[in-house]
């Protein structure tokens, strides 16, 4: 497996707060924390895409970031492509009740939500660095 790039794939779930957090963590990894080496893919492209997404996840390690314990991103990647190298279930970090709160528009983000993003991103970096080192 090639490790000069790592795919970070969030569920972006539309039914709960955890989905919004997952999306923001992926963006933070891409833009701030591990730019350059991080790639992301839209999860539904595994069904709708031309196959490039499945091939990417076969060649490169991926980290799934899921908003709830259904772990849809992890299961979809593994169903259509390859085992993930690492995975995060946000409900284990911020608590299940919080993770399952209503989905949030980015215009309603509070300091508490941003702290959840920070905590989850830190955990993602730990996994990321373990894979790339």
């Amino acid at each position, binding site marked *: 497996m090639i490790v000069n790039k790592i795919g970070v794939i969030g569920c972006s779930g539309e039914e709960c707060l955890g989905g919004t957090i997952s999306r923001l963590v992926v963006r933070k990894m891409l833009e701030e924390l591990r730019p350059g080496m991080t790639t992301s893919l*839209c999860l539904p492209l595994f069904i709708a895409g031309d196959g490039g997404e499945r091939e990417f996840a076969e060649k490169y390690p991926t980290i799934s970031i*899921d908003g709830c314990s259904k772990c849809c991103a992890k299961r979809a990647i593994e169903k259509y492509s390859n085992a993930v190298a690492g995975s995060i279930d946000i409900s284990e970090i911020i608590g299940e009740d919080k993770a399952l709160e209503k989905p949030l528009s980015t215009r309603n983000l509070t300091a508490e939500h941003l702290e959840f993003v920070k905590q989850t991103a830190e955990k993602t970096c730990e996994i990321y660095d373990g894979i790339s080192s």
Partner: protein
Amino acid sequence: MSKIKVIPCSGIGKVLGLLARESVLMVTQEKCPNESETLCLAHVVTGDDEVVAKIKGQPCITMDGCPKYCAKKSVEAAGGEVDHSYKVPDFMKPHRGEEHGTGTYLTADGWKFAEELSDILAKTVIEMQEEVR
């Protein structure tokens, strides 16, 4: 009658996915909360029996961020009836030259555009409900 399912792609790479996501949240949470609801597209992608039971044969509207139509294709693959399929770029013409933001955040122009998209979705939801009555 069951609520109309309104499902965005929530694409992570560009602002178009965020515009789709935010416009759908506006409809399902603010403009038509009694007539519409959304589903996690990531859950739809897994093809779980639980999500197939929720969506199979149900009237759906999809809002995609690009011509790959991930939301539409994934909903159809799970058995949903896509009565109206929209994509954000189709509504861009009057907004040429505007900066709408990134996959992380929307600018003031981006929020105005998302409002416009949500109006189109809300009108479609109401029309679909009236057709059934």
